[in-house]
């Protein structure tokens, strides 16, 4: 399992490890949100579920998971350097550019929902989904750049 932390014989950089942790935390938290929501949907109509506490809890868990996960990985496999270099910044900018495009396009959905007067539930969930998709897209692009070239 720890092979994923290596590139050839070199342990991956601190910044790349951070991206893996962020991706895992974001997707796990959103997956947990969906499970918790769908678990309650059996007895209550979806839009009537009190979603706010679950949504805020899973967002908080994603943030906490990123921090704790990063610390845990550094304890298990300490990085050679904690310094961000020019390649990390180049890859970061590229990933954020893609994520920015995704969020720009994706926010059209919640915008339309607001215009047609949709329930707050659907608007909030559409925004959450767009944030998750942009986070995943940006992170995957960064990881591809780290692994396959940039």
């Amino acid at each position: 399992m720890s092979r994923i932390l290596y590139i050839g014989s070199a342990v991956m950089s601190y910044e790349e490890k951070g991206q893996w942790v962020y991706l895992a935390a974001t997707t796990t938290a959103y997956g947990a949100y969906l499970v918790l929501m769908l678990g309650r949907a059996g007895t209550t109509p979806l839009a009537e579920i009190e979603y706010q506490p679950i949504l805020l809890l899973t967002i908080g868990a994603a943030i906490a998971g990123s921090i704790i996960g990063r610390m845990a990985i550094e304890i298990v496999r300490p990085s050679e350097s904690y310094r961000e270099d020019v390649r990390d910044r180049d890859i970061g900018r590229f990933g954020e550019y893609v994520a920015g495009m995704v969020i720009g396009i994706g926010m059209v959905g919640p915008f339309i929902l607001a215009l047609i007067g949709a329930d707050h539930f659907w608007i909030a969930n559409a925004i959450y989904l767009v944030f998750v998709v942009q986070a995943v897209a940006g992170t995957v692009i960064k990881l591809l750049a780290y692994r396959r070239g940039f």
Partner: protein
Amino acid sequence: MVRPTRVTNDIRRLRFAHGEMTQAELAERVGVTRQTIIAIEQGRYSPSLEMAFQIASAFSVPLDDVFQYPATTKENAR
């Protein structure tokens, strides 16, 4: 979308020709992480012009002794 660079290099050969300099030593001289030196050596990252000069300077050789580009290799230039 994400594609490796077409720039090739002789960093690995030059490191061995310069007292078997390690990737970590070269990274320290250039001011980057070892992972970045590995990525450049493997053609997965095209360094900036400034970094390319820093790498050439670390070996005390001209830039085109370190980096080559397909359309401008010495053979093609003749």
